[in-house]
């Protein structure tokens, strides 16, 4: 049995573009993964490319043709198969992209520590902010699943990301000029943490100021079916009725709509309202309720009488 996401988790994903499962994968599997890729101390690494090539040559991470069904992608009993069979991981994938998702691509990201750059006399720079792949105006979305096999401390420069940016349509590194964005976050997590990003989420790798190599294994998954109520096969979700706006009652209980309408400090005053409208449209798609609204944002502008 897999553990499908809750409606609240889906709302969190719809609003922020990401979900995290801290320390989800057990230490034994994390060690197995690290052993499989031949993890070693940075003192033993003279050349980043050679280290990377060795991992590609000797690990059990297979070459996966783009479009391969996820369920056929990884060797039996390999650490990655165990990770994808974890009931929470499988449930999150099924909830977001369905049980017949296919692999777009995978990659093992390595971020080397400062001492490597000093030793090799190279400038150590962070990765610029970007949105993966290319400009993508689809309603359909892919997910990128991140697996962190070791602890990631603040010094290790874990993936920087910008919650709530996933529905902005930009062209890959077209956002590289934004060096810093208010509310930016860096992943700091325990070994075995799984992160899931909407394919549109703005992000970039940080600088690793620790003494350890940082690893992040990433798989991009694409759905082959409509992403409607995949987390709620019994279709229990019902939109909430309208509530009073601005002139409101005190002490209202928080609802799933409050999760969906959360704002972020980087949003402009004007475009923040469009971000909310696009989140409502996204939630309409995810729930299948084509006329659903929150806080009257869409009803107001859809009331066209001419």
């Amino acid at each position, binding site marked *: 049995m897999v553990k499908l996401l809750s409606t609240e988790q889906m709302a969190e994903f719809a609003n922020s573009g990401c979900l995290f499962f801290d320390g989800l994968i057990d230490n034994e599997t994390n060690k197995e993964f690290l052993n499989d890729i031949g993890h070693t101390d940075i003192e033993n690494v003279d050349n980043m490319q050679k280290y990377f090539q060795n991992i590609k040559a000797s690990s059990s991470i297979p070459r996966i043709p783009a479009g391969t069904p996820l369920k056929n992608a990884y060797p039996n009993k390999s650490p990655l198969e165990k990770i994808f069979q974890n009931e929470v991981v499988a449930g999150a994938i099924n909830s977001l992209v369905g049980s017949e998702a296919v692999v777009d691509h995978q990659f093992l990201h390595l971020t080397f520590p400062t001492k490597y750059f000093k030793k090799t006399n190279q400038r150590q720079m*962070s990765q610029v902010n970007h949105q993966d792949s290319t400009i993508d105006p689809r309603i359909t979305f892919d997910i990128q699943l991140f697996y962190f096999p070791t602890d990631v401390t603040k010094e290790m*420069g874990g993936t920087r990301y910008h919650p709530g940016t996933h529905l902005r*349509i930009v062209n890959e590194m077209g956002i590289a000029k*934004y060096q810093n*964005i*208010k509310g930016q976050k860096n992943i700091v997590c325990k070994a075995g943490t799984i992160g899931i990003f909407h394919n549109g989420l703005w992000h970039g790798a940080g600088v690793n100021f620790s003494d350890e190599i940082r690893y992040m294994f990433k798989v991009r998954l694409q759905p082959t079916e409509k992403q409607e109520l995949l987390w709620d096969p019994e279709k229990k979700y019902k939109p909430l009725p309208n509530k009073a706006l601005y002139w409101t009652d005190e002490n209202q209980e928080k609802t799933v709509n409050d999760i969906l309408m959360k704002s972020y400090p980087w949003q402009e005053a*004007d475009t923040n309202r*469009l971000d909310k409208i696009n989140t409502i449209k996204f939630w309409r798609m995810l729930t299948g309720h084509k006329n659903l609204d929150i806080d009257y944002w869409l009803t107001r502008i859809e009331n066209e009488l001419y």
Partner: protein
Amino acid sequence: MPKRQKVLVLYLKFPSLEAEVISWATFDGTGQKLHMTGDSDEPPYPTGLDALLDGWRLFQSSQAIPEHPGEEFRTSYLKHEFFFEKIEEGDF
């Protein structure tokens, strides 16, 4: 004395210099500091006006471009962009 340009780019919450800074980038032509992505979580100034008060000279700002018909709800890049400079003299 040689002169070098320092550039500060501020993205503001709305298109007026009194607005709050929501994103920022600094490029230091003097070579004294190497700025890079993700290097600070707090903006250098609370508003665009505070940058002017500290001696930065505004040399470009984004224009107001009406949304294309049919694309009014499409969101994309940060909108309210202001470029500032300082010219520094020194023995670079």
